């Protein structure tokens, strides 16, 4: 049975993918943070009370899945699209990547650096669309762009980020 320290280390190693899983479904970064922290609290409580956890990442994803279902149920009036089948498929996607944690960790670090290296205008675009959750029209108004141009710019920035991360990872890519 893994020690408390090992379990905690396991959780911390997979925290980026766990947050990506939650954020992908919840879409609002603040609510995603709340669910992420609740998963951590439940995980810590389970570890302190001696619950046997063989795979921390899988255990945390299962807990997050339940919390996401609750989240969807509590926000039925906000026309959120909740789909359990999609949830199952995404969970499968993440489960397939559990063995590549180290690669994903390095990729996350590279991507984070790449975001920092983006021009100020691109970062502002990401800020308005992803963090402040504005519509494409509202973002366009602020940046003097059309909605279509906003979508196009976002797509271009994401492509740049991918390429940047691959460039940084090339020497160590498996």
């Amino acid at each position, binding site marked *: 049975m893994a020690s408390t320290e090992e379990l905690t280390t396991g959780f911390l190693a997979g925290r*980026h993918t766990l*947050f990506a*899983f939650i954020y992908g479904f919840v879409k609002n970064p603040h609510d*995603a943070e709340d669910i992420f922290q*609740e998963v951590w609290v439940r995980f810590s409580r389970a570890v302190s009370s001696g619950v046997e956890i063989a795979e921390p990442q899988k255990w945390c994803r299962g807990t997050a899945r339940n919390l996401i279902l609750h989240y969807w149920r509590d926000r039925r009036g906000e026309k959120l699209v909740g789909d359990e089948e999609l949830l199952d498929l995404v969970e*499968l996607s993440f489960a397939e990547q559990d063995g590549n944690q180290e690669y994903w960790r390095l990729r996350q670090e590279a991507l*984070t650096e790449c975001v920092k290296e983006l021009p100020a205008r691109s*970062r502002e675009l990401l800020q308005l669309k992803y963090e402040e959750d504005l519509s494409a029209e509202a973002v366009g108004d602020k940046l003097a762009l059309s909605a279509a141009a906003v979508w196009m710019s976002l797509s271009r920035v994401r492509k740049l980020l991918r390429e940047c991360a691959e460039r940084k990872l090339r020497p160590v890519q498996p």
Partner: protein
Amino acid sequence: MSRLDHLLAAWHHGTLSAEELLELKLHLQTREGRAALIDYWAVNECIHTALSVAQAEATEVEKPRSPAPAVGRQTTPRHRLFLFPKLVWHELRITWAWPFWGAAALGLILLSIQLYFEWIPACTATAQAQGQATVQRHNRQIPLTGSMALYPGDQLRVAGSSATRLTWGGTSIEVNPGTDIEILNPVRGKRLSVAMGHLIASVSSQPRLRPLRIKTPSAEVRVVGTRFSLNVTQDTTRLEVMHGAVRLMKTISTLAGEPSDIVVQEGQLAVAAPGVTLAARPLTGFLSQDFWIAPSQPELSTASRTGVAWSGSSIPSPGQGSNVVAKMRGYLLAPQTGSYTFWIATLNGESGAELWLSPDDNPSKKERIARLTGRTDTGKPTQVPTNLAAARSMDWRREPGQKSAPRILREGTRYYLEVWASTPRVEALAIGWHTPVDSDTGPPRMIDPQALAPFTGVDALDDQPGGRP
């Protein structure tokens, strides 16, 4: 932009139609599709993390220039101000930090309450002078006039012929002349130190774990709530308990096998002195005594209702037009079962006297069994006789009422006894008796002192502690 990327973007921004959702699920049936989803969502997560960190750093840098906090979710989201508040809270909870600080705060509050309600009032005693007394405070001698508050470190010295009353909370201590008493700092209860002298204490109920403690050169007395008399000399402490129980601890060297402390019960006495085994013995041989000053010649036993109590165990000097009445009370311990007859007499019949007896130890059942009206032509000074001479000088047959009717008493039973005399000179008073072994026709003999014990109860009319005759 691939079709899958478009679907994932539409999902993320909430613009995915039902058909597109179905299409997305079909893509996710393949391994490549699932890998693409992971990639897309990982980029989303990185954008969020990088922007949050950048925002937090910008906030830190901007803080000195704009101290006013930004308001609103958009500018200061919770997760940016404090990345893991729940995590930190959880850590505090599991490391018992909160219970520790909670217990510390509770302890502080309890300590404050104890200080406020117990320690601060316990520091202050009040001395009320009735005679000549001084208080020594910081090497200064302060004459005691009227009432005066005493504090730890103060030393009360009583001189002259009248007692001084010391009150401390509900405790009242009559400090007799020649007594040197010091108020000590209250630690786990009130504390006094008596170097020498005599005091009679009526101690109110004290907390069980914080008794009143009186230190003497040879012993320590611990009292929870009682009435007792303490007589202290350089190396001897004599404790007589009238009511309740007192613990006496001998603080000088004890004999081999001798206990170092005992509990002295009601009606018992104990002496702590070098070479004397510490033991509780029955308190017999005398009656409790006090005096009443009546405004006019009273019916003797009504003096307690018409007069005022003389607060002091020493004999009072009556003022003009006042009559001093002595009252003695206690218990008669019948040495054997049988018929007893009692006499009351005064020296040469010069004073009036009354003898009262109860069928048990309850004072409220007492009834007068003998009475001497006394002669009125007193004028010549009377010599106080010795015990033997007194028995011969007493006029036992002056009046018929001096003799009681025969009464049946049981061995080992306590009978409440009360004597009133219209004189403060109790040496001139005598009680005689015929026991079952005496001849009925012979003269009465003086009552055996071992058959008398001081009063140890409390009655409603008179709560003054009695002294030794």
